[in-house]
């Protein structure tokens, strides 16, 4: 299905350099490689071991995470991935879109509510026929919500999904290795 899925890893051992390898080449922005979207790799998800006790339906969220002796090594894996250039790139792409977008839509919404409650005279100013400023602003909120949704999903699909998926497989290989190949 994905190239990363079938990539040979030598049984997950000795793969501690794979994140660096991965960071070495540019984390190929997906807009050139694949315009389309992926199949969701859901059926591989349980291989991580994160939810393995969940299937038993027994109690104890504390018992769900095997954080004993290998916990230290697994934690190191996540720290290592977090510091890798590939991950930092994914994170900064996410933040560079989300932070300004939240700032814009939130101030636009708060501005709209505050104007509607404090300056009804301005909002009542007619524009065309029965349509006034208030009506345009209200419909504008609907339109901007749809546009933001479209922009966010497009950005995520083209700029994040591919790199995030590769990191996911790499990280899972590494944690599996750190747990002693318990897959």
């Amino acid at each position, binding site marked *: 299905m994905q190239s990363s899925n079938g990539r040979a890893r030598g049984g997950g051992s000795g793969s501690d350099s794979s994140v660096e390898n991965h960071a070495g080449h540019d984390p190929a922005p997906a807009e050139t490689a694949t315009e389309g979207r992926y199949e969701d790799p859901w059926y591989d*998800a349980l291989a991580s071991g994160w939810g393995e006790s969940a299937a038993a*339906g027994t109690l104890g969220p504390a018992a769900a995470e095997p954080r004993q002796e290998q916990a230290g090594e697994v934690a190191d894996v*996540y720290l290592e991935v977090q510091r890798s250039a590939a991950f930092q790139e994914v994170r900064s792409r996410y933040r560079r879109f*989300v932070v300004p977008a*939240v700032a814009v839509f939130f101030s636009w919404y708060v501005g709209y509510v505050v104007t*509607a*409650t404090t300056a009804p005279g301005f909002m009542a100013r007619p524009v065309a026929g*029965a349509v006034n400023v208030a009506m345009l602003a209200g419909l504008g909120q609907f339109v901007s919500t749809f546009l933001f*949704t479209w922009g966010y999903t497009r950005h995520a699909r083209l700029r994040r999904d591919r790199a995030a998926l590769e990191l*996911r497989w790499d990280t899972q290989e590494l944690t599996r290795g750190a747990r002693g190949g318990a897959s």
Partner: protein
Amino acid sequence: MTDNHQTLALLLFSGFVAVTLGITAWVGRNRRGSAEEFYAGGRLFSPMENGFAIAGDYMSAASFLGISGLIALFGYDGLLYSVGFLVAWLVVLFLVAELVRNCGRFTLADVVAARMRERPVRIAAGTSSVTVSVLYLVAQMVGAGSLVALLLGRTGGAAQVWAVIGVGALMVIYVSLGGMRATTWIQIVKAVLLLGGTVTLTVLVMLRFHGDFDQLLLTAAERSGHGAAFLAPGLKYGGDWTERLDFISLGLALVLGTAGLPHILSRFYTVPTAQAARRSVVWSIGLIGGFYLMTIVLGFGAAAIVGPEAVRGSNAAGNTAVPLLALDLGGGADSTGGTVLFAVVAAVAFATILAVVAGITLASSASVAHDLYASLRRERTESRSEVAVARMAAVGVGVVAIALGLLARDLNVAFLVGLAFAVAASANLPVLLYSLFWPGFTTRGAVWAVYGGLIPAVALVLLSPVVSGSPESLLPAVDFQYFPLENPGLVSIPLGFVAGWLGTVTSADIPDEARHAETEVRSLTGAGAV
């Protein structure tokens, strides 16, 4: 309302109940009884199915009947609600949906507890989730009771009592026997019915005005008696400054509360990946946005066709505007078309309430069993299957909701929905955002963030005019009103964020760098997601 309306509405509603019980039985037959199955429906729903289910969970009878009614009575001010309810989804889409899907398993507390000391955090997050759910649930139950009384024209208390008990019993059956899978299918069926009904009515309204929206607005403004002021803000919330601040507070609670509603968060676990969670939110934004645009047409249509006087005459809060509109659009009170349309709207409204309460009950039973019971039970006691506890919790939550719903059945409950959103925004959102985005966040910060939002939100409501000190309060005879606003959001939401920050900077714990790294890597990549 005549007997014909009632009989037909009851028939249609019984049909819906039969179909949903059939779904529950069918799902129960195939169930494996695991926690994945019960809380998350096996996690194999498609984005489109989940998008419809999210829309079904979110579009309550309060939106369908309440917002159109507000627009019919107060014009533009009702529209402000629908904008807040929709824009809230951008918070969910940008900051919450994918990340929560990647790091959690079943509940909000899973996300927070992943990088904190588990017990105190789970107890705190579980308590606030149950509080939010119960507030929301009681509002819906009381709504069901008054809806039955209004639509069936039975003013006696008995119909109301039986409606509350019936809705409560059905929701317990759906949830405890069918779990998330049955609940999801019920939401999907309900969303399709509700959208179908809304589209039909909207098309009929637009046909009446020959597709001329401008003409619709002008007629509505003219019939309202307020003229152009009907199309501008200020008729309901344009009074003194307290009233205006109250509205700003409500607006803030609406837009920030959605991302903290437990029954919405738990829906993201029913799809396999973060991408699927994102796509389901896109579906639901499309459906919910379209729905609220249509309620605007219905609201102004009711003002133009039925007239605010007739609406107010039937129900002072405007809740019957849409049923009355349906009666008129179908051809009037004595025509077959009017009878059928009225019955359809009534049945859709019942179905809506039933589906929403099922979703909330499931989310709160998950919080009780997965967070509270699992943390509070003593280590030595025999460990029962968590799913069995959750099924019992659903029964317990149902009994509590029925009891509170009966106690509160004569009260004005609109504030309960606003309060549920305000508590969700004050207690659940700060802790969720801090855990996902703040490297230095600590256990004490998490606990303080939850209680620092939850306690002020509840306390401010107790001290507000909804509880005492005015003729419309719950306790009109006494006066301990010290807080002027009906909605606490404006104060309690910032308090939740400040408390989380204060708890973190004053705590002696050193934030666990490795566990933050784990949360961050998992939330953005999906590594290790279940």
